[in-house]
């Protein structure tokens, strides 16, 4: 039950306004028919389940309905960064 800063609303809101939407940067293979079953299964099913900070997707489901990315610790729930899709997250 933490607070999330929505990059679109530009406000810090209660977690209950948001829904998690899985690990970030899971890109859909460009040519699904051209890859092996294993590679496809990796995209569909396998996630790193990282312990510590990782990037994940959230949606402001009871707000602006926008999806965005969050860098959160899976241990402490501390959020380091939030970013809209397409934003530069390298800094």
């Amino acid at each position, binding site marked *: 039950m933490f607070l999330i800063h929505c990059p679109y609303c530009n406000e810090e809101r209660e977690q209950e306004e948001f829904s998690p939407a899985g690990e970030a940067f899971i*890109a*859909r*293979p460009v040519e*699904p*028919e051209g890859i092996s079953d294993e590679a*496809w299964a990796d995209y569909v099913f396998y996630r790193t389940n990282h312990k510590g900070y990782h990037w994940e997707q959230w949606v402001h489901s009871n707000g602006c309905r*926008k999806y965005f990315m969050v860098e959160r610790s899976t241990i*402490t729930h501390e959020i380091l960064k939030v970013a809209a*899709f397409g934003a530069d997250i390298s800094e």
Partner: protein
Amino acid sequence: MRVEQLTSNQIDRSKPLTFIFNNKKYKGFEGDTLASALIANDALLFARSFKYGRKRGLIAAGVEEPNALVSLEMGGRYTPNLKATEIPLYDGLSAKSATNPNSFDLRAFIKPLHRFMPAGFYYKTFIKQAVWAKVEDSLRALSGFSEAPTEEDVDVYDHVHHHAEILIIGGGVAGMSAALEVLKSSDNERVILVDERSRLGGEIFNEFSSDEQSLKWFEEAVADLCGFAKEQRDRFMMLTRATAFAWHDQNYVEVLETHATGESLSSDGSQVRKTLHKIRAKEVILATGAHERPMLFEANDLTNIMLSQSVRRYLNEFGVVSGKKVVVYGNNDSIYQTAKDLHSSRIACTVIDVRSAEPLNTHAEKLKQSGVKVLQGYAIVKAYGSDKVEGIDIALATHQGTSWEIIGDSESLSCDLLVTSGGFNPVVHLDCHTGAKATFDETSQAFLPEKERANRQTCGAVSGVGAWQDTIIDGKNKAQLTLQSLGVVSETNGADLSENHANYFNVSEFFTPKSIINRPKVFLDLQNDVTTLDVALSIREGYRSIEHIKRYTAMGFGTDQGKTGNINGIAVAATILGKTMAEVGTTTFRPAYTGVDFGALAGRENGGLFDPQRFTTIHDSHVAKGAEFEIVGQWYRPWYYPKAGEDMHQAVHRECLAARTSLGMMDASTLGKIDVQGPDAREFLSRVYTNAWMKLAPGSCRYGLMCNEKGMIIDDGVSTCIRENHFIMTTTTGGAASVYSTLEMWLQTEWSHLDVHLNSVTDHYSTVAVVGPNARNLMKLLCQDVDFDRENFKFMQWREGAVCGVKARIMRISFSGELAYEINVEANYGRYIWDQVATVGEKYSITPYGTESMHVLRAEKGYIIVGQDTDGSMTPADVNMNWIVANNKPFSFIGQRSLSIAALSAENRFQLIGLLTKDAALVLPEGAHIVDRGGKSIGYVTSSYFSPILGRSIAMAQMQGGLSKIGETTIVKIVQEKQGLKEIPCEVSSSVFYDINGERVNGND
């Protein structure tokens, strides 16, 4: 009994109250708790213990009490399992023990069987289901808890959200001091102070008799805090009888405030019984104090063996004591203070200090000088008595190296109240809720909270500060650090604590010699009857982690959550394992810290406010027609429309036949509708549906099947091409929200380059379906500007026109297989159109039908319902719908790649088939299993109805390799009333039962 008035007493002797406990009438005073009033009346027996049926009384004065569980009041105000120590007395109170201590108790017979009921007894005995089933009811009755309420709670509970800069948990000396400091040193910061007791002050009342300064400080502090609460109410809130029971991430704390326990409130809902405060604080100051733990010896659970500080509290705060000849026993200096207080009230007492007389103890010497007998270096090995403690056996104790030993013979001492103190457990529970680990401190022999945590300070006894003067300083210091963290002050000017600030936290090591551990009936957890022998047994059986030992013995599983006993249990485990306390560690503390009423958690969100209710604009017409409703995805949908005397079966029969033979009508407004617009709308639909969309012309509709990336069906519905770049997609009623959210995800995360915009328009339109052979005839009467000729307005097309003067989109689509039109109008015209259709349709005996008939009609045609005939593991091929999968689209649609995985075309996959019972009248129950010759399940029934038009039962089912078994006979096992399990022979058939060639959608004119 009551002693004479002490200055520290917080009861008002001018306000007597009467109350009833276990059907007997008693008297108490305003300011008493139920527990203190019962001590005053010498009613000391509270409970029978859970496992052995032993008689139990109070041991504590607060939230940590394990024995004195009571139920309060009756009927709609009945509340089970409250602690008598936490119920402020009110006039007319009526309470009952959770387990009647005076009644005949089966377990009294079990008593001699102690050694047969060790840890794991129930588990080992009842692992065989057959035995458990026979005794479950009678054992559950002995659970040690009050009966569950049987009536609906008549009271109202509230939820309130707060945002504050500083939340202070605990209103004892530390919390009060911290609150005063932050209020005095800041101007705008919002401050909340909460305390679980009904008055501020914590343990300060125990200090009044020995130090006048404490009384002076307390009175001023209370006056100041009340002043702030009154004058700066916009930034300071002070709550008593308010327990912080859960601490979540980022300082989100839940506090349950009790306005009244059993006291009468008006039942019109204007008075709230409890408020659940949801507080989001920037900084938290934890001032939760400490709970005392008892000393261990044989039969330490006898009635009137109590905790030392609790006895002091009863004496000082309430002026009550439960004995005349007291033994005070412990391993720290608090026992001398207790003895001194008792002695001052002219109650005879003897002190037994397990620590030796060397080095010289000034507290002991002072007490000896005032005439109190003090035995140093002695331990109690055993207590005895029948109803309550009558005496003890003591022996010499020495501390050698790291362990205690008992030496020499024991001698007896008589007493009627035994008071013990084995040290103090800081209340670190809340701090640990968010993952902090308490660490064992050798000096104070206590688990202390982590020193440094972001946006949190601890002060007072929870951090090992015992002396009240130092607690004030500690509170101030931590308040300043908090203000510094907030940026309110730049520098702090903290004062140093005195040398003796730890005070009672200076205790000797845990008194757990093997000669005590190995005795019977040395109880660790009084509520769950866990003894030292249980811990020893669990270790012998191979459990090493304290988490496992806890679960195997059930130590700390009661409503008290082991607040007094758990740390002793850890010490016993450490001794047996030969480990240090730090190595053994604590168990995990989780919310809730104390019991929380379901009513408080629900708040106002019950009854009609439990879930949002959605109604179509046509709802009132359905009500007027006498419809029965079912809730589908929050929508109230007409289920069927019974006429006078009709049951559901009869109504559905009539409705179905009307739609098949003449004309039916249905409110289809609840279907999810998503408006899809943009140059790439077509491309988008092609990607999310399995079939082709590029060539669908404006004026046409198309059915689509939607899969997830795993290739499993998640939704279906008809989408309409309004114009080149504009579609309206319909989804299942229940799936509307999740489909919309999934589509948005694809657009926002993967396909942001697609120029498509989605909007949920479910509520924007009302939809009236006109269904049956006479549908075209009726539509011609309702709408003149559309050509309804069968060749010019084909199946799966739509036209725009004025229906009864209202602009409408008319779709010729069908979920019944009959000739049908769906009239879509702006939502607010829904009722008008419905009523017009009903009136004009009288000519064809138009019959409204509900979801049940809709299900029958679609099942006759073998149309699936996603979520009923599919379960998230069905591919298009599994439901025999490969005809709708277009594998040659340029973009690999969602799920396409998965469908090519070999396992998804295995022959023995569950496939959708039809079942025709040999007995045409028998309707299979949905969920019944299809079995093979060996009796093994090979499938199950997903939809099953009696088809009026076919005059027989029909069922759809998932069956392993079912599509290759069509024509064969199989067996469905069902349970029939009085006849038990029955095997029903059925023919496996196509799932299309009626109008197999699909001719009826064109009508018969």
